[in-house]
């Protein structure tokens, strides 16, 4: 018994020494292999399933050692599950790829996010990520006007959208959709639009639905002639051949960035950081553009049908302010519309 214990470390040491001395030049490559991310990465996302699959496949081409487990669901479902897990002290995700900056501000305020300043962030405008590096935008999802080409006259501004024939405008309800709640926060703080704009919509009998998907469907089928919707859905619908046209209103567009953030206390920080780097890298942004999303990097060409990033006029409000006022805004909206 005693002999065994003494022999083993000795032989181990001998092996180590022989390896180290026999191949002194191999050390460099060995250490980089150790640093290479591996193990399992648990991703919580609201990307459509096919897109999440493609994103992960492209990531694994670069980091084949990492296996990725995905929980994919609607934004609301993903966040409620994550918050409940976090509340119980054991979040089951390593990275989150969901929703909008104010939602991440909320997670940051609850100290649920890890700070990591990705070197890739240099290629992205500073407005699209948290200055403390808790989350980074990954793409641009602008809210635009969509109209049915068979039924509606073209319009080019939010102001004109409030004047369309009664009951002909459909939009997601901020009470049920996080993206719509974001738009509510931005538009009510935009000079020239504000709460008066929503009051005009109410007077004009705007129709509320649960989410962006229903808006795209209703305008395509002609149930309503105009809609307020996230651009990639409308552009995809147009490219597939639905009778719709997309307009980026001249006052500017509110946009969400589907940020990515690392969960505090993740057991696989390396893989999580690699994932963030990948999404922001040129390759990662090209993958997003290939799936029909507007990339954040200027050096990646947007997919067919999208305007160039530099041509977009953006309406924005600091994410912290939106996070703080979201519930009050939603309550005022619900009261206004009698929901």
């Amino acid at each position, binding site marked *: 018994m005693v002999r065994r214990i003494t022999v083993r470390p000795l032989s181990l040491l001998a092996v180590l020494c022989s390896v180290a001395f026999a191949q002194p030049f191999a050390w460099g490559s060995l250490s980089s292999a150790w640093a290479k991310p591996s193990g399992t990465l648990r991703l919580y996302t609201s*990307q*459509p*399933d*096919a*897109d999440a*699959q493609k994103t992960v496949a492209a990531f694994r081409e670069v980091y084949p050692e990492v296996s*990725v*487990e*995905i*929980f*994919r*669901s*609607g934004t*609301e*479902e993903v*966040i*409620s*599950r994550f*918050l*409940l*897990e976090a*509340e*119980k002290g*054991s979040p*089951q995700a390593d990275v989150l790829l969901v929703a909008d900056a104010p*939602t991440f501000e*909320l997670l940051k305020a609850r100290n649920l996010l890890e700070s990591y300043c990705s070197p890739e962030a240099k290629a992205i405008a500073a407005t699209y990520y948290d200055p403390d590096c808790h989350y980074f935008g990954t793409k641009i999802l602008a809210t635009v006007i969509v109209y*049915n080409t068979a039924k509606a006259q073209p319009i080019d501004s939010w102001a004109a959208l409030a004047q369309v024939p009664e009951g002909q405008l459909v939009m997601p*309800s901020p*009470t*049920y959709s*996080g993206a719509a709640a974001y738009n509510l926060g931005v538009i009510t703080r935009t000079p020239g639009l504000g709460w008066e704009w929503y009051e005009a919509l109410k007077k004009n009998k705007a*129709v*509320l*639905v*649960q*989410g962006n*998907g*229903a808006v*795209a*469907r209703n*305008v*395509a*089928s*002609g*149930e309503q002639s105009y809609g307020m919707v996230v651009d990639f*859905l409308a552009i*995809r*619908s147009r490219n*597939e*051949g*639905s*009778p*719709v046209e997309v307009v980026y209103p001249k006052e500017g567009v509110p946009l969400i960035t589907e940020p990515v953030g690392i969960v505090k206390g993740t057991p696989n920080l390396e893989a999580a950081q690699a994932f963030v780097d990948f999404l922001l890298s040129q390759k990662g942004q090209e993958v997003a553009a290939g799936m029909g999303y507007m990339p954040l990097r200027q050096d990646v060409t947007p997919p067919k049908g999208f305007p160039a990033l530099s041509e977009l006029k953006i309406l924005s409000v600091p994410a912290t302010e939106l*996070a703080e006022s*979201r*519930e009050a805004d939603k309550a005022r909206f619900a009261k206004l*519309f*009698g*929901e």
Partner: protein
Amino acid sequence: MRWKDLSKGLRHPIIPWLVAVAALVTLTHVYPLWRLLQRALGGEGENIRWLLETPRVHLALRHSLWVSAASAALALGAALLLAVLTTQTDLPGRGILRLLFLSPLVIPPQVLALAWIQWAGPVGYLQQGLRWILGKQGSLWSLYTPAGIILLLALFVLPIAYLTLVAGLSRLSKQAQEAAQLDGANLLQVWLYVTLPLLRPSVAAAAALAFLGAWGNFGIPALLGIPGRYLTLPTLLYQEVINFSGDGFGRSAALALLFGLPALFFLSWPQRSQEGLDPGEAPPDPYRLGWLGWLLSGILFAAALLVVLGPLLAMAATALLRAYGLPLTWSNLTLEHFRMVLFDLERARRATLHSLGLAGGAALLCSGIGTILGYALTRLKVPLLALLSFIVDLPYALPGLIFALSLILVWLPPPLPGLSLYGTLWLILMAYLGRFSALALQPLQAAWRSLDTSLEEAASIDGASLLQTFRHILVPLLAPALTAAVLLVFLQSFAELTLSALLVTSRSETFGWLIFGLQQGGYTQQAAALSTLLLIALFALAAGIQALRRHAKPS
């Protein structure tokens, strides 16, 4: 006296089985619901205060009570008529009618409601056709009203009520009906004075299931009630769940308490035993309807076309159109969406396998729970058991979202070191067991109630063990109710969507999760294609069973 009853009850041979069921139900029902209750009452009672003091809550409660009661009544009436006509008469085409009215079972309510909008909505095929015929402009009616919600909910719970009633009807005494007929009673009189009273336990079960199914449904009020600004309890609960900055979860847990109210009400119903069984006898000969049969059949087919077939065809049309919103012309048709879901949708096959296994497992286990618990409830008169039946019913009345969240609360910490159910298929199986046990318990309990105890007593005097009595005497007699239970749980869990949306990960995909993902990511047509394929599979299966039966009969 009561103590004597109790000690007699404790010696009953069902007790070990009942203990096993109680243990399982503790894991799938009691514990998750307990955590939810804890959460609702937590803090300084502010969630309860919010519940009691908020006018929006009261409004939603009133709305939900109204639409659920109305749709349950509508569904029950229609199901009674259909059940009697398809099982007791020689109605022409009854097999096809049965299948048509059952088919909404396999379609998730979110998809069904959308199909309805495409059929009867403002720009739906039905309204457009009628507008063209009548030469009118504008909307003829609106689905985004309480009436629209009631109609759709009724359609959604109709198959459940129907199957429960059919199970009860097929056990009716032949003699009572024949005696009434010999006395000169006509079909309606037999129906009103003989069939209906004998059927009372099954009617109560069907009514309870129909109400609870409508009460906890989120998909239909979400699609119709949000545009109509008609707030219901499930949509209000969703609003609170996604309120991430406050204690939305605590409030939704408090709201979940309200969902238990009707289940409590059904518990207080008088549960008299009914004895209408006539073991060993062939079912009564089908009543000959003659020319009336053709008339009724015509009316029912027209109704089926209007409320079932039309929407299903609209769904199929959506799946076949090149792009959403295009007019239905030859040049716009394509099989591309079917090709996509059949061949490109990675993991569709794995998800289907998972769902087959889960639905099969849930169907068997739920029927087991229902058989044992139903037996114990009707044979041992222990008040504590009534509480157990209330708890089994409850998750079915809850919206899937909140039940899934309570399961996360319970199963997030590993129950034993090194053993984690979280993110596995086992957790989803437990979720289905929790949610759908009520669907098995209600018809089985009704069957036990109408089954005379004399048979068991005779068998017991002859020295048969409980297991032997079950195997050779009771289970064959229960067969119709068991079939209904297995079918209901299997079909509902196969296309289950709201629990899956919160519990499924990339290792444990299910069929309903696939549909949810497609619908939610804007791939409406692919979701419609997947649902259409599911329907085709159901029809093919039914046709296959029919052919097998016909083949087996001559021998």
